[in-house]
């Protein structure tokens, strides 16, 4: 909670060593820096060979190709909330190295978020996020409601919308059943090892979990989630407010990817069903 009001603080931008740039500067320099979250499969993560990969990374690659520039990935962890991430990764930079990207991937496309971050514009919603549950259908043949988890363990990543929902559901009665993974990788392990017969996360994430556990007959459900903060939301890109022309160019690239079916193909590579946001 501590960082909600950070944006009201009084930082000057003049000392930033690197700054997010308009399109001419990006093209002249021959490279574009794009931020993706680390440890965020299947959107962005590091493969065993050290290579950055994932849906967001593939889209970023298309962005760079279209502009005819080299792609430089800036992969960092998440801070307490997306407002902080926008500040650290796009306009102000981190406290130590003051490094920023030109574009940030996977920013929720939300009017309020856009309004309260005055140095940032949110553009190009390219993907619809939904919340879902993956279950081992041998252990749990049906899933109508979350009441099923009154005495069945379910995994969720610590401090996510799923953790919040499960913690509060049925007046806290599911608390005993939640197995919290410190990272998303821990959630995958809990499911793969059979410690839990279900895991809750974004739909793309639970599809990824199913893909990682080929021996388990997985099924994906979206039962009613009374009291959940949001069960779906679009994600797009974040751009610094004085680099809108770069954002417009990338919006065109993203629409072409959707229309040509390339977006669907990218998602499918990771076992994910692509769903375009309706807006």
């Amino acid at each position, binding site marked *: *909670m501590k960082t909600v*009001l950070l944006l009201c603080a009084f930082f000057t931008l003049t000392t930033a060593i690197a700054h997010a740039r308009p399109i001419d500067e990006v093209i002249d320099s021959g490279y574009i820096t794009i931020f993706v979250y680390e440890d965020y499969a299947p959107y962005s993560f590091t493969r065993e060979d050290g290579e950055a990969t994932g849906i967001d990374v593939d889209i970023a690659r298309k962005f760079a190709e279209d502009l005819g520039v080299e792609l430089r990935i800036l992969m960092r962890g998440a*801070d*307490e*909330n997306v407002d902080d991430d926008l500040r650290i990764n796009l306009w102000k930079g981190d406290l130590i190295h003051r490094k920023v990207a030109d574009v940030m991937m996977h920013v929720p496309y*939300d009017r309020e978020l856009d309004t309260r971050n005055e140095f940032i514009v949110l553009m190009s919603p390219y993907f619809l996020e939904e919340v879902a549950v993956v279950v081992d259908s041998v252990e749990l043949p049906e899933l109508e409601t979350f009441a099923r988890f009154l005495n069945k363990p379910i995994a969720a990543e*610590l*401090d996510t919308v799923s953790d*919040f929902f499960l913690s509060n559901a049925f007046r806290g009665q599911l608390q005993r059943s939640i197995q919290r993974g410190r990272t998303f990788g821990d959630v995958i392990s809990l499911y793969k090892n059979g410690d839990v017969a279900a895991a809750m996360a974004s739909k793309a994430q639970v599809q990824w979990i199913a893909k990682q556990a080929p021996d388990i007959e997985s099924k994906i459900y979206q039962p009613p989630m009374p009291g959940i903060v949001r069960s779906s939301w679009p994600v797009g890109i974040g751009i610094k407010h004085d680099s809108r022309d770069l954002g417009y160019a990338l919006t065109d690239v993203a629409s072409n990817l959707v229309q040509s079916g390339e977006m669907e193909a990218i998602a499918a590579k990771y076992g994910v069903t692509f769903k375009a946001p309706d807006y």
Partner: protein
Amino acid sequence: MKNFKLLAVASALACATGLTSQVSADVGVADIVGDQASTGDIVSYGLGPRGQRYSPLSMINKENIKNLFPVWSFSFGGEKQRGQESQPLIKDGVMYVTGSYSRMWAIDIATGEELWQYDARLPEGILPCCDVVNRGAAILGDKVFFGTLDAKIVALDAKTGKVVWRKKIADFEAGYSYTAAPLIVPTEAHGPLILTGNSGGEFGVVGEVQARNPETGDLVWTRPVIEGHAGTLNGKETSITGGAANTSWPGDMWKNGGGAPWLGGTYDPDTKLAFFGTGNPAPWNSYLRPGDNKWTSSRVAINPENGEIEWGFQTTPHDGWDYDGVNEFVSFDMEKDGKMIKAGATADRNGFFYILDRTNGDFISATPFVKNITWAKGIDENGRPIWDPENRPGNPAESADGKKGKSIFAVPSFLGGKNWMPMAYSQDTNLFYIPSNEWGMDIWNEPVTYKKGAAYLGAGFTIKPIFDDYIGSLKAVDPTTGDIKWEYKNKAPLWGGVLTTGGGLVFTGTPEGFLKAFDEETGEELWKFQTGTGIVSSPITWEQDGEQYLTIVTGWGGAVPLWGGEVAKFVSYLNQGGSVWTFKIPEQLAGK
């Protein structure tokens, strides 16, 4: 890392200036234990491991303080400034001082010249939550020790600044960091040990105190402060903190309970206990974790011989306001109702000044040291808060209908009635001098926020001053009654430590840039000096070659400038910096 000069040069300089005190002797653990009485050096954080920040020196006193002038000022240089919260150490005519961005310097006190500088190479990917501060070093033998922002502890050769060893306290990639001064304590079983508490992001962190061999950096024991986690001694598991998991936490929440003891600890040679304060629990939403959530927002007394918790006292059970319990616990002997009590005092974030029996943690008293506290109606006879349910932040789940939730006004704000900045205790007046702030916070539930690209329920908040004309308040408090003897009001929030001396003086710095001296009895301001940037560090004083010196590190920053809100108008004009200022009474004015 830079090594501009070796101590050979320093020694030559010392000889040239005729200093006899630079005949170098290594620091022993007995020197640390007896630091308060030996005025010729400062070899511990807090001018003695009890952390009283009292020096018996009286050469600078109420009468001659008007003649106090700077001898030299030393700039940290570079492009890196931000908050300077460091307390320097003094040994054999050399000052060891740490700065922002995990840097350290050795300075020749006679000339103010640099002997060496050490810059930690900080990896990409550290995202320190609050600021890039460091609060000071520890010294033992021929080494100086300090912690770096990437959650490592480094031992440097005191003469050259070269690295002797470097050890990982915790994983910075998991959100851990380190900013406190390490604590060195004696033990019979292991010899001297160097103690650190971890610090870092709030969620997924488990608070832990670690003890290492200062020669090698090897771990001797560890003590998690959250119920249910096992400690270790010589690599083997020992007891489980709190006896078992889940007695004061629901489900598996104890696994990631928070409670980081990030401000470090104090040590009492009398009871042979180390005292550490612990951070607030996680997650922030208290409705998700019914129970006391031990030992978060607490003080724990640890036996340095084996890392066992001898006692714990929770200042804010089931915290819902972000009231870290990390503030320092200062040992002192208190005469009350004709009896001498082995007491300890702590001025908590939550606005109450607690006196405990330091031998067993028994509650003695708690009195408010800031005004208009709303989160609790008081503290009962067992030391537990009498909560005001109206002023606990609401459950974010109840605002999931997409509306902004009910707003409550809690006093103090989460930055605390007192934050990290250490108080002082005078052995002459028997008063505590507490740097405090008068502010509260509006907290409401946000209809929707986002975390790592995903929808999330969070809270919004804004800090508000309680009074129009000031936030900062330095108070002299009588520990036997809780009475406030005097108060100095400061426009900007106070964020620096306090020092009191045998000269009848109380020193502290202000964000406005003044180092100030007050009369210990009346609070009358007797002297001030403008250093050119804000002060958020702790002053020290010592004796060298028959003269009393005073030093303060300057450089505005820390957590206050990060939080904005209505506090911004009190501090937004302040400029950054990074210097050491050293003062004494010039020869020409001595005796006047």
